[in-house]
């Protein structure tokens, strides 16, 4: 996805350390996601200045401040729209979008669907803790039915969204699920997602140790089954991925659900970008072209 522009120096973990240490609660799942992203960038040797990490608002959305790349910590729910603009203005950048389940599936739901169908070339990592963390514990769109929170103290009466099914239906071309307690697989999925040319969606179970006492590390561990351990799983089979996406309960799959590589990313489908990133394009309209614009009106 990224073309190395200038810098060929070796990228080390230390290069990716942010200006401040994360202020997440000790034990928060988001630490694991941060580590995996840093590891993936080191493995892929992508220089930090060619990466833009874009988030909305939430505990998880504090992510860009904790990694030394270009960062944008934007508005609640709007990271994908902003990321699309960034990518189209300079498609040589590696674009990572990081955020929470409320950010992405709640307020950001419309951009979720539409960025996917556009196949914008980026990796979207949702740190899915099934709760609103930063606002101190309300029901999120992925909170299970019956779950009690400050906003639904008698238990949630609304069915949660299924991010994997939704992403499949919306047309994402790479769809995976990780667990922040499963570093190796997670790092690998992040690398695949970065390398995939198109919209990569990675839903990561990232437990909120402070507000979600239902979906804890302990709750997840015995349930999670790696898709790569299922020899029958074919990630190019959309219907099969959809079937797997419905699993929830004693068995919850993690790993790559689906990938297709036959759809061009949005920036590859628009000839205006053939000559290279807009950032480097000449801002002056050539005089003959300008002249033709005016002539049309005469």
């Amino acid at each position: 996805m990224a073309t190395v522009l200038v810098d060929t120096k070796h990228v080390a973990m230390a290069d990716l350390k942010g200006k401040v240490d994360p202020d997440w609660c000790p034990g928060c799942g988001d630490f694991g996601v941060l580590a995996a992203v840093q590891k993936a960038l080191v493995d892929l040797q992508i220089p930090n200045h060619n990466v833009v990490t874009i988030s909305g608002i939430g505990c998880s959305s504090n992510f860009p401040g904790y990694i030394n790349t270009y960062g944008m910590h934007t508005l609640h729910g709007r990271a994908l729209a902003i990321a699309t603009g960034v990518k189209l203005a300079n498609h040589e950048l590696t674009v990572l979008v990081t955020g929470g389940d409320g950010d992405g599936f709640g307020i950001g739901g419309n951009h979720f669907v539409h960025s996917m169908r556009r196949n914008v070339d980026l990796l979207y990592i949702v740190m899915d803790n099934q709760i609103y963390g930063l606002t101190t514990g309300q029901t999120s769109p992925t909170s299970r039915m019956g779950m009690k929170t400050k906003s639904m103290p008698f238990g949630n009466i609304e069915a949660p969204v299924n991010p994997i099914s939704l992403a499949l239906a919306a047309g994402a071309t790479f769809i995976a699920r990780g667990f922040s307690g499963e570093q190796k697989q997670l790092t690998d999925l992040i690398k695949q997602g970065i390398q995939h040319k198109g919209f990569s969606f990675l839903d990561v179970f990232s437990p909120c140790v402070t507000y979600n006492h239902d979906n804890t590390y302990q709750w997840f561990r015995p349930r999670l089954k790696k898709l790569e351990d299922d020899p029958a799983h074919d990630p190019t089979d959309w219907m099969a991925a959809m079937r797997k996406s419905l699993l929830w309960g004693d068995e919850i799959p993690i790993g790559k659900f689906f990938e297709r590589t036959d759809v061009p990313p949005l920036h590859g489908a628009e000839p205006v970008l053939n000559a290279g990133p807009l950032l480097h394009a000449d801002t002056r309209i050539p005089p003959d072209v300008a002249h033709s614009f005016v002539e049309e009106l005469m």
Partner: protein
Amino acid sequence: MKQTFTIGIGGAAGQGVATPGDIFAKIFSRRGLHLNAYNAYQSIIRGGHTFLTIRTGPERVSNMGDRVDLLIPLNQDAMNRHLGLLTDGAACIYNADTITPGVPAKGALLCPLPVSKLADISRNKVAQNTLAVGAGLSMMGIGFQSLEEVLTEQFKKKGDAVVSENVGIARAGYDYATAHFEPFPWPLPMTNNRYAVLSGNIAMAMGGAAAGVKFYCAYPMSPSTGVLHWMAAHARKAGIMVRQVEDEIGVVNMAIGAAHAGVRSMCATSGGGFALMTEGLGLSAMMETPVVVIDCQRAGPSTGVPTKTEQGDLWQILGAAFGDYPRVIAAPLDIGDCFKIIPEIFNIADRFQCPGIVLCDLLLSEGRLSVDPKDLDFAPVVDRGELITSVPSTSGSSGDGVYKRYKITESGISPRAVPGVPGYAHTAASDEHDEDGVLISDEFTNPTKRRNMMEKRMRKVTGIEAAVPPPVLSGSRDADITLIGWGSTKGVIEEACEILTEQGIPANHLQIRWLVPLHGDAILNILKDTRHTIIVENNYSGQFARYLRSETSYVPNGYIRKYDGEPFMPHHIVEAVKEQLGGKSRLSVPAHEILV
């Protein structure tokens, strides 16, 4: 008084009102005549009632004027609604087969066309329109050749047979009129000028291209959609990435994303879409990422009257997003200015790294005006401000450890590095942050740093003020009446001033183009020498008057307002001024006599 000639064409949507309008416009502008066109239409695809006014003349025509010289009603409804507008010397050309005229005013001429005798209406559904155009041109004293040329261009794609059929019909109308109708007393002149005829939307789109916009996105919304249409059609030639987005929230944020990555980025909408964008404007302000948003106002509140004009979004724009932040807001004064204002506002937005808002309205966005091609300057000054798009050769290889994105400076401006530049990595945040971009909202809140950062950003206001010229008074300083307006009303107020002055009431005129910053002191300085001031605006509550007062305490002697969806005509203002000078009232709300 200027010599102008106005044609009014009325009919239902789908009856082809636009085509005769286009033909007249082309012929006039090629004749070196100026023109101004306004279409009173409805949010309907077929049916209803549309009334197009084209006013032309050898000098600049700044508004639709007061009178109709030639009425072409395409159906009975249009005849019934508008015949009463005609006064002495005017004429009405109509299809005598289908339309029954009313009784015209004294001196107004009825010109019935025996349409089915002159053309084969079973073959050509719009024959009546073409006949009327021919007849009209004959009465205006314009040679047939110009019409033949335009029709040939228009139909050449459809083949010679269609061309000659249409030219034939036009000719029949032309000849019939020459034989039967009295020509207008003064033939339309010719000049050596050549004008481009364009809408405000096209002007703003082209202005964007000229300013170096590389990213444009939008969600369709009347009356702003024309900007998207031009951009989309010319995207490849102009090298502009144009996207239609899922909603206006996506639009503004996508535009900000592109801007943040370093390109000039623009979007346009109307009031309802703008309402959805205000949160994004705050983001642009806080991240100090410049973006230009155009709001083409239409009659509100809410969905309101989507095809009608109003200047009712001013307070929405002034109040867009919460908290205090620097920004620049401008209202173009006419369609030519729609072009010019875009590069200007981009330079300010870029230099001061803040959002820029252009407050246009339906009257300009969808109106059309003849503009001298040399006023469409595709090589304007482009000042991108302190923008770092590559490692500065002077600074060694890296900004590492030195570069502070939000450095506190005297001017409030901090050099802006775009993603991709080695050594300048930083995070831009919507949360309050320190010079390094580190949040001071989470772990490290700090009232002192917060205050310093607020003051840094707000210091940019001083720079913006200096970058924006104060308004100037048009006309003689020594006047009995000073009319104050903003944005699109410039043309009509200008003409009202001329009429008043001619009628012995010397009038001058202050039109506001830059709304924020406003230059209140300069305005007060101008207004202190006036005798009787009236603020003219196209909304109910006097939004500009209230804003001006908030900045200056100034209270004018009177107000002229209109909020029926239609623009002012010069006589509305002239009569209201006289009424107010007569002491009858301080607020006049002229009635719109054209039923549309």
